């Protein structure tokens, strides 16, 4: 009996192994694609099917009739997923996953972000108070054969999301929530502003340079004579906690990177600072500043 059962199982396993698996490999007219972008801890991910124009001359007002709600993609609706609240073209979009729709017209179009992400393209969502809707202006653009979502521009505080297909493109201005307060109050800054003599050590060198801290436009700004990186000639000190700052590198006066590997640690712990240490990973001391 046991031998018979074993033979039956072997025969069944062989049959299963010979059945072709049709769902794992399939040629699709609009293959699925995706793109994501992280900015200051906020991740924005677009998942969509990518239709191709394939010589269709009239996409908008033709294949996609004016007034019809259309997902800028194909098959299952294009989705946007965000792990933190953002604003999109000035409209609040809470953390979550949404299906994305456009209602095209001869003039402005309407963008619709629906809280139900799993919708088939033929079943556009009915209007609801839970949707985020606003007008967008399509722009004439060089022909884009394959519908493409991209993060056209990336800034420290946001990004420009762009959808292009055929002769039109639509852009969305996305702003993220800053993960840190970059401002330093005048009261707090008064503990640190002034001129210091910075004694370098370790790989930074072994000389003395001048180091000045000023308070400008609610920022604590450092001026480093002969800095180890050109962008540290003038930089922001980003408060991490009591007496501790990271260097914020600037490009044209705008913050573009916070260097967490270099820490300015001021002393004494409370009151007006008289000195600071420059510490790197491993807590190694690469510089010591004394107030002049």
């Amino acid at each position, binding site marked *: 009996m046991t031998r018979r059962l074993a033979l039956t199982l072997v025969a069944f396993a062989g049959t299963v192994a010979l059945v072709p698996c049709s769902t794992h490999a399939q040629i699709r007219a609009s293959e699925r694609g995706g793109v994501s972008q992280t900015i200051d801890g906020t991740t924005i991910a677009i998942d969509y099917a990518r239709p191709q124009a394939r010589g269709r001359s009239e996409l908008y007002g033709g294949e996609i009739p004016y007034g019809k709600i259309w997902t800028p993609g194909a098959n299952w609706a294009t989705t946007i997923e965000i792990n933190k609240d953002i604003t999109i073209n000035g409209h609040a979009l809470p953390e979550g996953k949404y299906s994305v729709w456009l209602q095209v017209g001869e003039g402005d179009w309407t963008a619709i972000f629906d809280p139900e992400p799993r919708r088939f393209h033929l079943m556009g969502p009915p209007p609801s108070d839970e949707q985020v809707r606003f007008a967008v202006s399509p722009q004439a653009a060089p022909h884009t054969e394959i519908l493409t979502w991209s993060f056209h521009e990336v800034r420290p505080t946001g990004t420009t999301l762009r959808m292009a297909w055929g002769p039109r493109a639509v852009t969305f201005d996305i702003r993220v929530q800053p993960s840190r307060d970059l401002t330093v109050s005048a009261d707090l800054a008064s503990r640190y502003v002034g001129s210091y003599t910075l004694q*370098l050590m*370790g*790989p*930074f*060198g*072994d000389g003395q340079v001048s180091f000045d801290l000023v308070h400008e436009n609610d920022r604590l700004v450092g001026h480093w004579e*002969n*800095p*180890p*990186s*050109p*962008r*540290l000639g003038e930089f922001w000190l980003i408060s*991490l*906690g*009591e007496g*501790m700052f990271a260097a914020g*590198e600037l490009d044209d006066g705008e913050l573009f990177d916070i*260097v*967490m*590997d*270099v*820490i300015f640690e001021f002393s004494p*712990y409370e009151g007006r600072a008289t000195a600071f240490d420059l510490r*790197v*990973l*491993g*807590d*190694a001391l*690469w510089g010591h500043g004394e107030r002049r």
Partner: protein
Amino acid sequence: MLDLASTSRRGFVASLAAGVTGMLGVPRSKMAMEWCSPVSRATPGPHPDPRPDVDASNVLTTEQLERYSHVIDLYDGIRAIPHIADGIRCKCGCADLPDYRSLLTCFEGGGMARTCQICQTEGRVVVRLHKAGRTLDQIRAAIDARFGNG
């Protein structure tokens, strides 16, 4: 030594890693495998309360650190303050491991402080600030400021 006048930003950032490697006396190839970001990777959680009866009897000895001579002084420092190290949460991610209790755990048995840059840096900050007279709460605040609240 860096040529301060001509170092590019890329060179500067690279020098941070390379310089630390050199200062610690660790071969670069080894270091590359163990390099971690100074930003927290741990699941957010509070600093633990130190156990009243905690001691340093399980902290690895100099003999046990034969292959890790560059951290012997650090282990000596932690061995002297188990009641402080036991009140600090490690930020490297090892706090998520099943037998983890505190930063002190990183310096015991198979703990990661022999090789992990974040365990080591946290340990050195804790030892230094305790020597400077900071309280446990002040040291915790400094650790959170430097490594994040994770």
